[in-house]
């Protein structure tokens, strides 16, 4: 095990009767940014706080950099955290905030000051040291929180929904900055969010959690292209989940949707009833029937400038499609035909 790795061995967390985290095993490689993604209450924040030492594990072992820290207090773990609320100390200036972690470690004042200045420079806030946090904008406060965490040169940097208090435009900018700093310093970072787009954008690896356990872990590409369950398919990028059935076996495997058999290109070990995963932009709509197409009626159409969203009702349920703007867009009540390319489909179990 090298510096900066994080390892959980069957770590569980319970509050009395409530299970916040089922026994969990995970490995986070040094120098990577790993995202814990999931809906609220899925256990992602609990996992982060267990790494931080702000919660103690009910069972299992936690290792950071190969060292068992299960019973080590948060104070002595070489881990820093950026809080959702930033948690800047309101009675200290920006510079005092950034230097705080250094001064509590008894670093000489002058050295702490220069390190804090370097930290502020890294996040582009040179010259803001004398201000109070309340005099900064949300984005600036966020960067102070990052600077305060990284001047300690932690083995692991934890980020708890760091962008949730920023407006949408700023979010993309700040997440790129965070990613750049993480890569430049080669930090191990664990990032909690419930926003899948944000997760896709910053992560080396994503761990999707649901109901206090891991639903699937992998690179953003893995999760999008090879979802292991209907939940993942739907959660990582939108997806149409259509009931289907696998017919035949071996080379003659076909997939039956709404009574019509379709060609099956991909290899799969699944059999019987499955769900077809189709991304909205993989759906083709036409006014006239095509081979193997499904009839559907437009129930809602929304013009969004660079694309148009359609909701359609069909025998296989509601279908959501995204199409580039057409000369003559479809309208509500139009009867259309839905089709897709065989190679685009993914299958997950029901």
């Amino acid at each position, binding site marked *: 095990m090298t510096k900066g790795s994080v390892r959980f061995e069957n770590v569980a967390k319970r509050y009395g009767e409530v299970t916040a985290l089922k026994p969990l095993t995970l490995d986070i490689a040094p120098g990577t940014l790993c995202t814990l993604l999931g809906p609220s209450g899925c256990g992602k924040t609990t996992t982060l706080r267990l790494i931080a030492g*702000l919660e103690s594990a009910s069972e299992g072992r936690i290792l950071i950099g190969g060292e068992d820290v299960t019973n080590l207090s948060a104070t002595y773990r070489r881990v820093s955290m950026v809080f959702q609320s930033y948690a800047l100390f309101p009675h200290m200036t920006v510079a005092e905030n950034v230097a705080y972690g250094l001064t509590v470690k008894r670093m000489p004042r002058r050295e702490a000051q220069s390190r804090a200045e370097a930290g502020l420079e890294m996040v582009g806030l040179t010259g803001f040291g004398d201000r109070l946090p309340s005099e900064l904008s949300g984005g600036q406060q966020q960067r102070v929180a990052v600077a305060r965490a990284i001047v300690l040169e932690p083995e692991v940097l934890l980020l708890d929904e760091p962008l949730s208090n920023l407006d949408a435009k700023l979010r993309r900018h700040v997440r790129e900055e965070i990613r750049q700093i993480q890569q430049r310093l080669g930090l191990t970072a664990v990032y909690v969010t419930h926003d899948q787009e944000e997760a896709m954008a910053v992560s080396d690896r994503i761990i999707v959690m649901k109901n206090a356990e891991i639903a699937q872990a992998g690179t953003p590409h893995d999760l999008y292209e090879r979802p292991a369950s209907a939940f993942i398919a739907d959660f990582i990028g939108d997806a149409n989940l259509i009931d289907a059935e696998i017919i035949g076996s071996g080379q003659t495997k076909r997939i039956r949707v709404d009574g019509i058999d379709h060609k099956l290109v991909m290899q799969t070990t699944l059999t019987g009833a499955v769900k077809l995963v189709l991304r909205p932009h993989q759906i083709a709509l036409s006014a006239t029937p095509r081979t193997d197409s499904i009839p559907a009626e437009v129930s809602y159409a929304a013009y969004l400038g660079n694309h148009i969203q359609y909701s359609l009702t069909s025998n296989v349920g509601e279908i959501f499609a995204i199409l580039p703007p057409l000369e003559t867009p479809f309208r509500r009540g139009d009867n259309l035909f839905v089709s897709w390319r065989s190679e685009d489909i993914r299958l997950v179990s029901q």
Partner: protein
Amino acid sequence: MTRIVRFWSLLGITAFLLLPWYMVQGGFWTFGWVTDPGGTGASAALHVASGRIWLLGPALGLLGAVLATVLPLSQAARARAWLVCGVAGLALLIGQALLILGTGPRLAALGDAAQPGMGAGAFVVSVSLLFVMTTGISALGRGRGDAFVTGLVGLIVALVAVFVFYPMAFIFVQAFELRGGAGFGLSEFVPRFFSPQTWSLGCVTGSGTCGAAFNSLMLGILTGLGTTLLGLSFALIFTRTDFRAKRLLRALTILPIITPPFVIGLALILLFGRSGSITEFAHWAFGMEKTRWLYGFWGVWLAQMLSFTPIAFLVLIGVVEGISPSMEEASQTLDANRWQTFRRVSLPLMRPGLANAFLLGFIESLADFGNPLVLGGNFNVLSTEIYFAIVGTVADPAKAAILSMTLLAMTLAAFVLQRMWLGRKSYATVTGKADNGQNAALNPGLKWACYLTALPWAAFTLMIYVLIAFGSFVKLWGYDHSFTLQHYKQAFGIVVRNGVHFVGAAWDSYVSTLTIAAISAPLTAAVGLATAYLLVRQRFTGKNVFEFSTMLSFAIPGTVIGVAYVMAFNFPPIELTGTALILVLVFIFRNMPVGVRGGIAAMSQLDKSLDEASIMLGANSFTTLRRVILPLLGPAILAAVTYSFVRAITSVSAVIFLVSARHNLATNFIVGRVENNEFGIAIAYSVVLIVTMLAAILALQAVIGHRRLRRSDRVAA
């Protein structure tokens, strides 16, 4: 952790070897014991050598802990060893203290061993063992492995156990003890507990007087109801009308804090007593007979109404302000008129606040001691009965204990009821979101009803206070109204002849009151805030029990605490009566709720992520407390210190049994003057106290205001 354990156990061993184990005559800080190492100043080690072999136990615990720090053990084994050593040492220390008393051992097997009360050495050794134990617990991974947190929990639990629960236990022991040392049983307790003297309903059935318990109960209910209604009137005027002199009303709320006990009673005597001004006037104008109606139920009730209405007002302001304006606006947009809005929306939302105010008034009334003492006459209530059972011509501690239990049962029942009622329902209507609506104004009928009840009452209250100031400057109230400074001279005279001589009779008690209040105030605030910190910020096993037991001490009336202290700390192992220490202690644990409440309120305002951020940046809990929480709590701390100080000055019920000739207190001095009918000097003294306390509070507000200024200066820079 190893370093912490080593520090405490070595400190404990040093104390064991060097400090006097037992209480020293003349006090520890005179250092008389240094020159007498063989006698009273003997350390535990010397006592062990001279035959008190049982004192060795605690030292063995400490030695074991030191040994565990040097032996090559695993982390877990070491932690367990510390825990075992700490627990065993404490158990041996407590065991020997409870078994071998001043008069001899409880068990015949121990021969005729006897020992005096524990002193400095025993104290340091106990604290060391406690921290060895808590550090062991934290090393086992409890409390997130934070030795400071487990230590603090241990310390507070130990303090509450020794200074609240241990004395309270004596009340039960005393109550069940049979006469002549014949052991314990119910045979005497049951008939005395249910004695008709306590529970008689004679005044209702028309056959004589009522028992003290019934009197207390009735008084409590009527005071609770009255103060709640009046308080609501005031609160409605304050928040829902365009009344001009709101600041004056607000000033009312500060009065009960700075009013020494007896003052209101005295003022009422000056007005309504047999030679009171209003009585005289009514006699002269309408030929009304001069009676002693004031000395009894109605007099006490009136005094309590005056004393406790501001408390209800304070509670209800918060409640009425807490009703989100949007609720009332919603009601009005649904076409309800102002009366319907008040009746169907606002009032139901105030219900928990009203219940809270009622129960607070009820508890205050039951615990009140000063007013019944001055105005009670033949009207007996539990708190005064307890007092007379202790200091009366026939001292009867068992009776005092049994009456204390009755009183305690009532206040605890009220307290539990309050918690249950408030716990079940949520009426919170103010959310974190900004809410810029306007509260609905009262409808005219209700508004005038409020004006007509509350404003005369406010005028009456004001008059009482003016009267007090006036009364301190007249020769003899009701007979000779010529101006004089004689009362002040008598109490606070200073003669400058060959130096300055404080010849006034009150100087001693005034100085010792201020000294003891000044010593106990910061300690009270510290204990209270530490408790609040643990309650708001930390999670640990048994926290619910911890919370409930600290809250319970809110409900113990001062008289009961006083009786309990007299019974518990009058003989070894902890012998404190007659010292200033016991006064400091009783103030700390009596006023702790003030600090806890203030601390909880202030700390709940601070986002928990601030602490967590500090911890994540490598600060331990202690550094976090010092550098993040305390600076942000600055004003709350100052407020807690000031209020503890002021409450210590006005406290009477708890300390009246504990004062001694050397450490007399202001309130006790005043009781003495009142009992001798020297009203002038009592009032003059009260005025001086009010001015003292007002100065303290104004100084506090000046400091807090100044702080805010400085911060905004910095923002501007």
